[in-house]
């Protein structure tokens, strides 16, 4: 972990903007074929699914509708055309900024996303903060006394949580905190009787989903910090700091944590996919009105335009996360560089 320390020492130097920008540019170019393949894949998978978009669109009324009426709606929705044709016309209009209309929400896709993305960001950010703060604290404490009771307890808890699916934790949390204790609302954004979104209402409704999503992200962060800080504690600079008579607290937080955190920080970006899949489950379980829950609904309703737009968004987030972690890694360890 000496690489991390070198960066710290070089803290005052100018950042390598040029290579970083070139890397970002290369990655953006590389993203184009990825997005093409991903969007086509979404259309193909949705097309192959047994769910019929017209049946999903018409719901109960479809069971008494005439065949002619249903056929007309199929044509109006454009889902009677071949797969490649649908994908191409979606792509070309998406490039001009028109993401199409969501059939399940009966509104333009852009509006649907704009209404929801804020709530998803709020949930994901809160959950991530929970994971980072708790993970760091526990990781440092565990690393300080490796093999101690806290280390062993938190370690085994982390491995158990890593194996527990988010929806299962969510249902467990609802059962315990909402049904058994009755202290926190089970889902939604506001109480059932209130349709006004106040900060207090959202705060209470955010606790459970954010905690569950945070807890599912916690184990890896805890394990990385514990490992990083633990290794750093054995290294020369820490030994030197101790030899200089610095307080244990200063040694731990000022020296070991700073260098031990680096590998964990550089991996933050690569955790984006897991955060997204976690949000998919958590938003669904807690009826959180975000884009992840909308993705599930869109998939079930075979709502091609909405599903494609949301997948592009998720793919972009994953690619951006990878770019971020590579940039951070390049900064942290100059040997890696910005060639990827």
């Amino acid at each position: 972990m000496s690489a991390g320390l070198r960066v710290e020492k070089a803290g005052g130097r100018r950042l390598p903007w040029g290579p970083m920008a070139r890397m970002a540019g290369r990655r953006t170019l590389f993203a184009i074929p990825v997005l093409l393949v991903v969007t086509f894949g979404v259309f193909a998978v949705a097309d192959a699914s047994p769910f019929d978009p017209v049946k999903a669109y018409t719901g109960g009324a479809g069971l008494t509708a005439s065949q002619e009426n249903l056929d007309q709606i199929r044509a109006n929705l454009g889902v009677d055309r071949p797969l490649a044709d649908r994908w191409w016309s979606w792509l070309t209009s998406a490039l001009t900024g028109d993401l199409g209309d969501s059939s399940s929400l009966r509104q333009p896709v852009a509006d649907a996303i704009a209404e929801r993305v804020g709530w998803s960001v709020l949930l994901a950010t809160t959950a991530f903060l929970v994971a980072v703060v708790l993970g760091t604290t526990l990781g440092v404490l565990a690393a300080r006394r490796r093999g101690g009771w806290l280390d062993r307890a938190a370690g085994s808890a982390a491995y158990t949580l890593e194996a527990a699916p988010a929806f299962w934790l969510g249902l467990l949390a609802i059962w315990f905190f909402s049904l058994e204790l009755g202290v926190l609302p089970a889902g939604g954004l506001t109480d059932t009787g209130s349709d006004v979104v106040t900060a207090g209402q959202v705060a209470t409704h955010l606790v459970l989903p954010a905690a569950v999503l945070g807890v599912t992200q916690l184990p890896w962060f805890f394990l990385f910090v514990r490992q990083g800080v633990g290794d750093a504690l054995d290294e020369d600079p820490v030994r030197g700091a101790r030899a200089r008579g610095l307080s244990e607290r200063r040694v731990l937080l000022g020296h070991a944590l700073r260098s031990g955190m680096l590998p964990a920080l550089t991996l933050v970006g690569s955790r984006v996919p897991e955060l997204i899949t976690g949000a998919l489950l958590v938003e669904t379980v807690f009826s959180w009105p975000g884009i992840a829950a909308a993705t599930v609904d869109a998939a079930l309703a075979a709502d091609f335009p909405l599903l494609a737009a949301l997948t592009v968004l998720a793919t972009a987030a994953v690619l951006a996360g990878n770019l971020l972690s590579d940039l951070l890694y390049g900064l942290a360890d100059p040997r890696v560089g910005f060639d990827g």
Partner: protein
Amino acid sequence: MPSRSIRSRRTLRGLAAVGTAGALTMGAAACSTPGNDSGGADAGTSAVVGIAYEPETLSPLLGYGKDGNSKIFDGLLALDERMQLKPALAAALPDISADGLTYTYKLRKGVTFSDGKPFGAKDVVFTYRTVLDEKTNNPSRSELEAVKDIRATGDDTVVFTLKYPYAPFAQRTVHPIVPAHIASGQDANTGPFTSKPIGTGPYTLADWSRGEKISFKANPTYWGGKPAVERFTMAIIKDDDVRATRLRAGDLDGAILPPNLAKGFAGDKGKKTHTAKTYDYRTVTLPTHHRVTGDTAVRRALDVAVDRQTMVDRILEGAGKPAYGPVPTDSEWFTRGTERAHDLDAAKKILDEAGWKPGKDGVREKDGVRAEFPLWYLSGDKLRQDHALAYASDAKKAGISIKTQAGTWEVIEPRMKQDAVLAGGGSPADPDFDQYLLLTSSLAGDGFNNMAWYDNKTVDKALRQARESGDKAVRKAAYDTVQRELVKNPGYTFLTHIDHLYVVNDEWTGLSTQVEPHDHGLANGPWWNVQDWKPKK
């Protein structure tokens, strides 16, 4: 005990609020749904009810509220508690020409939409024309297929011209009317009106959080007077147990519940159970194109082999009635004398006489064909599953082997021509609405209409006569013919009519239920007329 838990809940919620307030400020500011102060939950002036189904849309142009009680909108006519038509946006019931082809409505004067703009004939014309436009994605358009033309004569009269005489047409004009000045300039399928509906109705939409709840606010300028229940929220809770739990916890003031869960509230003095009579039947389709179910003897045997009363007692826990046809036995349209008693010996006799002889394993055979067929039910639908299993077990006693199978509509639909399906249906407003689609031979296999491919010329003729004649006695005679034909050749085995149960806090007066259809969602239940509820003092 309850009060203590509520207090501790508040404290903990308060603590939690402090904890997350920081992270919130940024996100909440960036998000939609602005609001004014949330008024305290004054007893009686706000109500929260739990329903099982969410409407796909709140735009009448796309099918919302087509059968009335849409809260946000009014139709020209409306149905009262006894299912009689009464004028709403029309000033009176329509004038119908002698040939039954022209319906003239005088409109109520002085009505405004909730945005303050006046309602007039152009709104009616716009609504019907848009629904009938094939570019509009309205799956219920065929319900108005009799309409040839609609036009306004003056600002307070609209005239419908029909393609053919259609006796129940006035029932269709409960269809909600949308404001032309708002909805006309935009895409009927995806425009902003679909999520921000505006109407003349007793309520305005406060918020629709999809999959979670729909909240309404009383319309202070409602032409029928401002409702006493000022805030009305419908929580969408698909799971029956969750709905019951939230009702018990006090989160809901009322909910629709299956009989076994409704029973749990029988001893609760603060709550009342309302039982709605319905046209909601469960039936087994006996496809004409299957060698066993297409045989009239098999159909008749099954019709008497099935023990309907036991299904009502065991599956519905008494909340329902045996069904002998699409018309429930307590309806004015029911044909007395068409009830069939459970008679296993009669069933065996019919099969014996028709040449269906018991084989080695007890399953009957005729000309090398075993008396067996598959019966599909919608997976996850416990009620249909129970009916299907009971039906199969009754049939087995008569020597007919039925293999029950669960599937989604995607799986079932392609098989409907050959395989039996446990289906549901029923529409109370007029017998034509359900029976014409269910039994007309030319609609066999048209979408989900006439799923059994029922083919009976006498029935076809009677159904046509009943929908065209404006004379109630002629119509009644025609529907009697249909019901008698269904005894002679039962292409469907009707099993039960199901009561719908609603448990509601006893805090209001004016609660009643209408006769309900198969699809009972937002528009049904004791809250069909929530605008007329008054808080109990």
